[in-house]
């Protein structure tokens, strides 16, 4: 009874298409059908943030959307952050500040931080803590993640860096 839907969308600037049931979660579609396994699945109910992606330029939980809802959408996943061999400033800062241990939350943390910095390019430490509170990390105690986001913010303010948004932040 459950019909198969064809979905065409853009991920990290590249056109993709796939076929799935309406009940397929967007995160599963990204991982299983598009083969982009950088986006992780943690809790599957919108709490942990590991599956955070940019959906039409805004961070969203891909476990709380169905793939059919991404028809024609533009997504950015962690695979789209680096330019060739060159890390995005957030990735570079996470690397330099040792802002990950197991790495499970990192794709969500990077994308959530990217969106947060688009809305608040010069955050205080408290604002960074609030900004990254949408993603749970069970290894680091957050200290180095906070440092990394602050460092990346400084770099990104100095340079014109891809934020995943085509329009200026509100």
């Amino acid at each position, binding site marked *: *009874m*459950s*019909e198969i*839907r064809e979905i065409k969308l853009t991920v990290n600037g590249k056109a993709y298409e796939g076929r799935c*049931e*309406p*009940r397929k*979660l967007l995160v*599963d579609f990204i991982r299983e059908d598009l083969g982009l396994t950088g986006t992780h699945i943690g809790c*599957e*109910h*919108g709490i942990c*943030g590991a599956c*955070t992606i940019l*959906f039409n330029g*805004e*961070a*969203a*939980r891909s*476990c*709380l*959307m*169905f793939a*059919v*809802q991404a028809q024609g959408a533009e997504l950015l996943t962690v695979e789209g952050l680096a330019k060739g061999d060159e890390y995005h400033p957030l990735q570079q800062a996470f690397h330099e500040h040792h802002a990950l241990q197991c790495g499970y939350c990192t794709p969500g943390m990077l994308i*959530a931080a990217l*969106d*947060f910095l688009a*809305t608040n390019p010069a955050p205080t430490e408290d604002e960074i*803590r*609030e*900004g990254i*509170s*949408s993603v749970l990390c069970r290894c680091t105690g957050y200290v180095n993640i906070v440092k990394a986001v602050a460092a990346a913010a400084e770099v990104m303010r100095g340079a014109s860096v891809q934020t995943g948004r085509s329009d200026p932040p*509100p």
Partner: protein
Amino acid sequence: MKPAKFEYHAPASIEEALVILGRYDGEARVLAGGQSLVPMMNFRLATPKAIVDLNPIAGLSYIEEDDEVVRIGSMTRQRRLEFEPLVGAKLPLLHEGLRWIGHLPTRSRGTIGGSIAHADPSAEIPMVLQALEGEVVARGPQGERRIPVGDLFHAALTTSLAPLEIITEVRFPAMPAQAVYAVEEFARRNGDFAVAAVAVVVVRDGDRCTKARLATAGVGPTSIRLRDAEAVLEQKGLTEDAITEAADKAAAQVDPVSDLNGSAEYRRHLTGVLTSRAIAKAIAPRA
């Protein structure tokens, strides 16, 4: 877990959505932002036969003001409201309340109408709707009707909306320019459901309090107005004694339950504490 099978519909209009809903005789669910419904489906607490997705319907996302009434399309994202200057200018209490809802990535999807229709007891938007005495516009097969907030919330997750009605608009009277306001909320972690929250709007005339509106979240089956506390402030002003008395009345009026996040007694205590803090914060000079 993964959602159970369902039939997916992406109607182009509210009328079409109502026709599809009617075909399923109560076994279809309306999908707005999905930040509550989809987790319930992932857990299989909700296993609707069909999903009627409102996201493709054009014209349900807007913020307009006519004659001191702010009208907000039901599918307007919480995130858009958060960054909308008109909300900051005319409904600063809503602006304040929005910051407490989940996180930026959930506010990107979550909608104002979806939050109201879901009627979670701990949700901030129903609390703000109570404090600002707003109303919703609902569309059904017989046409449109307006439901004042006082007639809307019946019980936890239960509203007076008919099975074949969809909220299309949320209306708030613009706050008077001299109104002061605050939201105080306690949750165990940033972005968690409120264990208790109180919203306050106060209009002053010299030492007198000409209007006080207080509403709750998290401390009963639905958000309620704290009418006894309002009466104290309107009769006795905003003295320290009156605030203490209002907080006691607030704690006495609520009907909280015990769960993993706190006992009923603790929530009652928090209601009093948050009421006095919110009033004090509202009337304190703003930087």
